[in-house]
């Protein structure tokens, strides 16, 4: 049944707070199994609460679910869980709409029509699993195990371990996650020598300078940062936001510095110029703990130019102003402010990173932290340990598995593309579509919605059509699972076991336990259990690779590591950072449990575990780079490029590198390549305006579109509901004859979308912005057919080094629609 916004508003009129189960009003909006309704009507009305962890975005906020007679009726934030400290975003607060969504699959289905036809028929779990297991067995028997892939999403920890283990024991190198994490980590790995994204001590900061980090709406954990931000207001922390449009974070900052898309790194280097020129940098840290600041000579006697001279020679304010659009006087002022304000922390976000030059831009942003000495003990950038989970037992691989995992991964770095990434959706789609270097026979899709989220829709859909057997675990069929042959619906997170641990950038090690707050409403399963079952059916070494009877067994196995370590604390009341530090300094652990079962019960009761004690060592131990220091000049980058250039090249190493850089479309040459620098984005010259996209809190990466209340709240800040809009500066709008509310055509070289204009001074004159998350062609009745997906008109460009989608690399024309 389709439902209009008008219908929805009428239906929810007068209803707020928890879900009125069994009431007539919401029967049109929610679909609640009869047995649940009966229980609610006839039960004694007993109220209980259960803690779990949200699964609607990677942040994994702790939530407390209110149950009446064991039926979930309301959700609030878990006040003890340290990531969100009782807060929840609108998505989390409305997660029951997902549980009772009328378009949830009630059991496994098989596609009987073309992709997108919506024609599916029910199939039993046994039949579906037999089909898959038979195909997997046959492929493995014929030595084609590499032709199986799992395209995951943001899963981490135990689920990641399950999926990787399954594929490895089966004999495939093709486990990938279409998640920003591994792409985001590339610039940090280059300068720090370690793959983990650091945390930023925003709580202890005197000034936060953000380069496109819209952390109140976007990024890893908006609720965590919102909580920090509320403390900042109390502490009067200064906030400056550099961004092309005035995001939620910019509008809450003390100052918004508009900057052209693709030039964030240049602005950072302009500020670095002022710090160096005026001796406002931490000379001791730079001298002792960094590499490549000054000019240097390598072991072969070749002279290299250092960061200091590159910056002083190329990034003076007037020149940077030409690149960025930021006045030279502002750059000078910013540099002096950053250099003179104690405890300044610099953070880079998607604005800086989501472009073809994202890696270089983020390196430039991080160079400011190095200049300020923010890596010193107690400084603004730090690395916390990981939750000490027990790893699964070692795998014993048989011959087919050993042979299979040696194959070239279908989505890994290519000869001419994305040399530093573990996965690129661009390369994956192209390889699968071209069946290079081998065809893909079975593809498991776990989480996310790559066809909606990625920039290469056409390549990806062509690739999906090439795969004979696509299996999805989606609970509501979306754009990507329309291409699946079988959909094996997983439980919603409210019915499922799981964990979320060590979310990047959150300033402490943590683990949230996800437990079923209600029994599965429909015939759904945990995806980990499905892979264990498949392993058993395949048998042999694959079957014995599953050491646990079910996913829960593996979860408990991992959590035993926490119990045994004695580190940190279950997130009970009063276990605050300073108290845990107090105990640890004196050699005490905080909790005591008579057995693992007691520890496990406490975890379930309170919702999680954390260890906020920072382990700051001397700076030298922090950087496992070739130099053992923070590297302004990234040796790792140069080593990788040289190795890749020489592979299959001539004996002319310099020529090989030149050739590789040309193929990667990197303009810099010489030492500039390894140093933070401004790498121009290849914008098309025939279109006048930059297009940027952004996420809004009720929708995030598109997931919120399935929930009707989130569609109602989509444009909560601009009074837009169930529709997209394009933000345009008043001068630009006037020149084009556009007023707020007008329909416009936004046209790129890829395509065009029709969208309403919102004229606002909160955007640069030569930039327009469209929110991401609307424009679904599938994903249930509330998502389908509302708004536009701006990714459909973005050029298929990616960061040259990390493979991250470059959502800020497209220019457009805009005109009033008639």
């Amino acid at each position, binding site marked *: 049944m389709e439902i209009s916004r008008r219908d929805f508003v009428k239906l929810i009129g007068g209803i707020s707070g928890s879900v009125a189960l069994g009431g007539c009003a919401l029967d049109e909006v929610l679909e609640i199994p009869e047995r649940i309704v009966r229980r609610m009507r006839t039960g004694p009305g007993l109220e209980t609460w259960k803690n779990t962890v949200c699964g609607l975005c990677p942040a994994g906020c702790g939530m407390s679910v209110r149950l009446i007679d064991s039926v979930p009726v309301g959700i609030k934030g878990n006040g003890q869980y340290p990531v969100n400290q009782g807060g929840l975003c609108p998505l989390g607060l409305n997660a029951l709409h997902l549980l009772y969504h009328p378009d949830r699959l009630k059991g496994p289905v098989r596609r009987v029509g073309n992709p997108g036809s919506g024609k599916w028929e029910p199939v039993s779990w046994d039949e579906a699993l037999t089909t898959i297991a038979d195909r997997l067995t046959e492929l493995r028997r014929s030595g084609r195990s590499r032709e199986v892939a799992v395209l995951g999403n943001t899963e981490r920890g135990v689920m990641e371990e399950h999926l990787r283990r399954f594929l490895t024991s089966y004999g495939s190198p093709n486990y990938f996650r279409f998640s920003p994490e591994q792409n985001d980590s590339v610039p940090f790995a280059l300068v720090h020598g370690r793959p983990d994204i650091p945390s930023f001590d925003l709580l202890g900061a005197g000034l936060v300078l953000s380069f496109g980090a819209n952390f109140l709406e976007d990024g890893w954990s908006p609720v965590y940062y919102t909580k920090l931000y509320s403390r900042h207001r109390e502490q009067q922390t200064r906030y400056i936001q550099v961004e092309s449009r005035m995001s939620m974070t910019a509008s809450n900052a003390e100052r918004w510095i508009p900057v052209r898309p693709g030039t964030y790194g240049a602005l950072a280097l302009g500020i670095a110029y002022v710090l160096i020129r005026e001796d406002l940098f931490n000379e001791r840290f730079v001298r002792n703990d960094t590499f490549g600041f000054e000019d240097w000579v390598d072991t072969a006697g070749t002279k290299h130019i250092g960061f200091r001279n590159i910056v002083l020679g190329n990034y003076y304010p007037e020149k940077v102003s030409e690149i960025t659009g930021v006045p030279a006087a502002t750059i000078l002022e910013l540099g002096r402010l950053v250099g003179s304000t104690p405890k300044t922390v610099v953070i880079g976000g998607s604005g800086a990173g989501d472009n073809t030059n994202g890696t270089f831009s983020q390196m430039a942003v991080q160079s400011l932290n190095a200049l300020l000495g923010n890596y010193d003990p107690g400084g603004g950038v730090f690395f916390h340990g990981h939750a000490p989970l027990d790893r699964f037992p070692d795998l014993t691989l048989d011959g087919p598995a050993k042979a299979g995992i040696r194959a070239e991964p279908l989505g890994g770095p290519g000869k001419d593309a994305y040399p530093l990434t573990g996965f690129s959706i661009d390369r994956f789609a192209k390889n699968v579509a071209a069946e290079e270097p081998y065809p893909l026979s079975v593809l498991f899709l776990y989480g996310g919605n790559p066809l909606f989220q990625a920039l290469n829709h056409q390549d990806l859909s062509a690739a999906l059509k090439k795969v004979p057997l696509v299996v999805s675990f989606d609970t509501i069929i979306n754009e990507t699972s329309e291409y699946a042959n079988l959909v094996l619906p997983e439980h919603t997170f409210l019915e499922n076991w799981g964990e979320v641990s060590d979310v990047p950038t959150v300033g402490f090690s943590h683990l949230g336990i996800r437990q079923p707050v209600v029994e599965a409403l429909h015939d759904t399963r945990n995806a980990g259990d499905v892979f264990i079952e498949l392993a058993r059916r395949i048998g042999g070494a694959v079957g014995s690779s599953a050491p646990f009877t079910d996913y829960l067994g593996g979860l408990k196995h991992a959590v035993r590591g926490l119990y045994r370590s*004695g*580190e940190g604390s279950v997130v009970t009341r009063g276990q605050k950072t300073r*108290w845990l530090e*107090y105990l640890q300094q004196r*050699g*005490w*652990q*905080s909790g005591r449990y008579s057995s693992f079962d007691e520890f496990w019960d406490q975890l379930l009761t309170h919702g999680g575990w954390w260890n906020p004690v920072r382990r700051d060592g001397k700076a030298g131990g922090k950087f496992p780079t070739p130099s053992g220091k923070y590297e302004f000049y990234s040796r790792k980058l140069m080593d990788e490029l040289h190795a890749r250039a020489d592979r299959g090249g001539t004996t002319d190493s310099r020529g090989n590198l030149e050739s590789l850089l040309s193929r990667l479309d990197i303009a810099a040459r010489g030492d500039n390549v390894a140093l933070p620098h401004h790498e121009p984005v290849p914008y098309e010259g025939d279109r006048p305006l930059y297009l940027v996209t952004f996420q809004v809190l009720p929708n995030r990466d598109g997931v919120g579109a399935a929930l009707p209340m989130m569609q109602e709240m989509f444009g909560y800040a601009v009074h837009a509901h169930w529709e997209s809009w394009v933000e345009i500066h008043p001068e630009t709008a006037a020149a084009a004859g556009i007023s707020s509310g007008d329909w416009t055509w936004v046209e790129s070289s890829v395509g065009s979308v029709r969208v309403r204009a919102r004229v606002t001074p909160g955007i640069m004159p030569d930039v327009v912005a469209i929110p991401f998350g609307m424009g679904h062609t599938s994903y249930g009745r509330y998502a389908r057919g509302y708004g536009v997906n701006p990714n459909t008109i973005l050029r298929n460009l990616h960061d040259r080094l990390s493979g991250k989608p470059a959502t800020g690399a497209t220019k457009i024309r805009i005109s009033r629609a008639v």
Partner: protein
Amino acid sequence: MVRTLFWMLCIIVPGTLSAQEIRLPQNPLEGRIVFEEKGCIECHQLGGYGGTAGPSLSKDLYFGTVLELATIIWNHTPQMNRKFRQMRVSRPEFTEKEMTDLFGFLYYLRYLGEPGGVARGKKLLESKGCRQCHSLGGSGGGVGVPLDSITVTASPLYIVQSMWNHVPAMKEQISKTNLVYPELSGQDIADITAYIRQATMNTTVVGGAAPGDPHLGREIFASKGCNDCHMTGEGKRKIIAPNLSRIELRESVTETASLMWNHGPMMLQHMEDRSIDWPRFEGNEMADLIAYLYFLDFEDKPGDPKKGEGVFAARGCGSCHGKNGSGKGPDLATITHFDSPIRMIQLMWNHAQSMEDMLITQNKHWPELTGDEMRNLYAYIREATKK
């Protein structure tokens, strides 16, 4: 010296203590929640954390039994009230349970000890002769367990517990050589542990001990047979070893553990003479046991009601709490029986604001008390409210 002390204390003391009036907090650390949530930490530091408007509670000056601590708090009430007014924060009020938790927590802090010093630990390890038997970093003796092997944990309590358990073996080894049994004091163990942690790069406490539970400690005291020889004041028993209620055990856990360690050989001899097995501890047992002993001094010795009546009169309490309701405050005879000093403290704390206001308007001074006066006052009030 220790031997002399030991035998002096071994005099049979048939004393008993009255039944405890204070219910020990099941977990003394619960009081930290009160300490934080009532805002105490905003003014008082603990181990470097917290505000500086008030004195640091890590100082010895702010330590004592229930009534000693109550005296300290009572006497600086006017100063504290002024701070509250300056900072524009409300004076917190406490329930009896919150007050019990808070006092238990503040008392417990000393038990938790202080962080060790690496440099001093290194010197101690050499000067105490530990390296003659135990190796570290490839050098040192090979008789004892290599200290590098302590990878599981780096908790001082874990180390001292391991040391205690190997007293018999060590004594035997010492008898074969000319080594001197190393005696420990003060922060020694914490310092040595800090050094071992750094030397082995084991900077994380893994699987270490949790702060002791006095209730469990009482059970361990019985189950290990400690009460066969020692008495604690709880119950009558003929004793052959020091009466622990008469020893100052209000020190950090490592200091008390050091005291136990120091008298280990003597105790071992004593036990061998009587064919008693050496008590060994596992897991958290030693921490619990010492927590129990530590809390033996939590409650004050009984005061003198007669003297307390004098304090009541001399400090002018009677001008408000006069008999037959003659004062502005309630007549003691009408107040519910005080069965715990905590209840008295709670009431005194909660009414301190209004009392100070009244004293200021009447041009009277705040009635300061000594520790003895507080004990006697409680004894008097307890009698006076007895139903």
